[in-house]
């Protein structure tokens, strides 16, 4: 698999988590690939933190409406039944327990569910945007990212970069597997299609508890 195929695999797996009626916010990067893999018949309501629910696909060329943009500032569409609102309402939805899932990328995640994704040490940015609110407020936090960066693991015993939130991550989905953060530690529940258990362990600094029902990744 090349990197793009890995990202598609991750998105495909994340899409299996949702059920009809779930309200979901997707961050930039790998998470934006998720909608195309939502199974037919499952109505997921996507929220865009700049101010609406009912996020639809990218418009055809020439049909863009400058007043309808997503949280990356790009032109998008709103589905029938959607609703626009201001930032205060948007983050009321996020912080107030009305958002079922957020799917975000990360620089680092650790076995306690801590996450760093807003600032590199020694750098001045880029800033957290809505990520800290999403991590703190969403009922479930799914991290969707490549397992390693430049050969270094992103899944640690303890994050070393400035944190975005503590103990908030529930599920980590990478090309190497699916890991659940529990009170007892990080449980490897599914393993990627082209890797061995040894390879997953070698690419992970965090202590992995191997599930008794370890399966191949469902995609």
């Amino acid at each position, binding site marked *: 698999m090349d990197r793009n195929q890995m990202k598609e695999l991750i998105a495909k797996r994340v899409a299996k988590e949702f059920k009809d009626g779930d309200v979901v916010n997707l961050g930039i990067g790998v998470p934006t690939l998720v909608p195309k893999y939502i199974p037919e018949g499952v109505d997921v309501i996507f929220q865009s933190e700049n101010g609406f629910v009912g996020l639809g696909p990218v418009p055809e060329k020439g049909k863009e409406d400058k007043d309808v943009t997503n949280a990356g500032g790009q032109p998008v569409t709103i589905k029938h039944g959607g609703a626009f609102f201001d*930032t205060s309402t948007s983050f009321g939805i996020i912080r107030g327990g009305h958002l079922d899932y957020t799917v975000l990328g990360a620089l680092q995640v650790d076995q306690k569910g801590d996450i760093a994704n807003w600032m590199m040490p020694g750098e001045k940015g880029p800033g957290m*945007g809505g990520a800290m609110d999403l991590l703190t407020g969403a009922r479930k936090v799914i991290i969707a990212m490549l397992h390693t960066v430049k050969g270094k693991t992103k899944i640690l015993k303890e994050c070393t970069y400035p944190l975005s939130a503590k103990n908030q991550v529930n599920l980590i989905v990478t090309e190497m597997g699916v890991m659940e953060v529990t009170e007892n530690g990080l449980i490897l529940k599914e393993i990627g299609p082209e890797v061995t258990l040894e390879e997953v362990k070698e690419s992970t600094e965090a202590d992995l508890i191997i599930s008794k029902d370890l399966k191949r990744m469902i995609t």
Partner: protein
Amino acid sequence: MINKLISMEKAVSMIDDGAVLMIGGFMACGTPLGIIDAIIDKGVKDLTIISNDTAMPEIGIGKLIVNKQVKRVIASHIGTNKETVRQVTSGDIEMDFVPQGTLAERIRAAGYGLGGILTPTGIGTLMEEEKEIIEIDKVRYILEKPIKADISLISGSLVDKNGNSFFNATTNNFNQVMATAADITIVEAKKVVEVGKLDPNYVMTPGIFIDYIVEGAS
């Protein structure tokens, strides 16, 4: 008879060196672009900008940054404008990062007469630094104080001459809350209509929050 409509020249005449400005918009969507261009023409310096982001270098707030008119930024994200990152790194701009939801609520607190807000966002992170932590029913919250501005610059899609404003689609974002939290609020209207032409049911920001209206260039 109330008529808040003023010229662009009159609007920027209220903005001096060192002014603290709130500017609505999200990556320039819903940003009063005409007023920003007029501020660039006037050339005032040492501005404090309170906004979600600093857009891109070639548009909106991004242009104020490129033109070196800003000394301080209070925002949630600057990653889309490399020039902001550069000036923050060099020390030319003082940067305060505020989580997006917290930023909206701190502005709302200022406009709604609240002494602050309690938020769980940022607990266990650098956001806690030098702030009071208050525990309620065993949950820890950060006490975040109100943020107020001298002048709030917002963008309205449809505005009547009393200032009653409607924000179309995702242009709303911070505009609605920012209208409440400054000494002077100026709305740049895409379209201005006579009083009575905007159905009161569709007013998102009542005109009593709006001091002046300028007609947008676009």
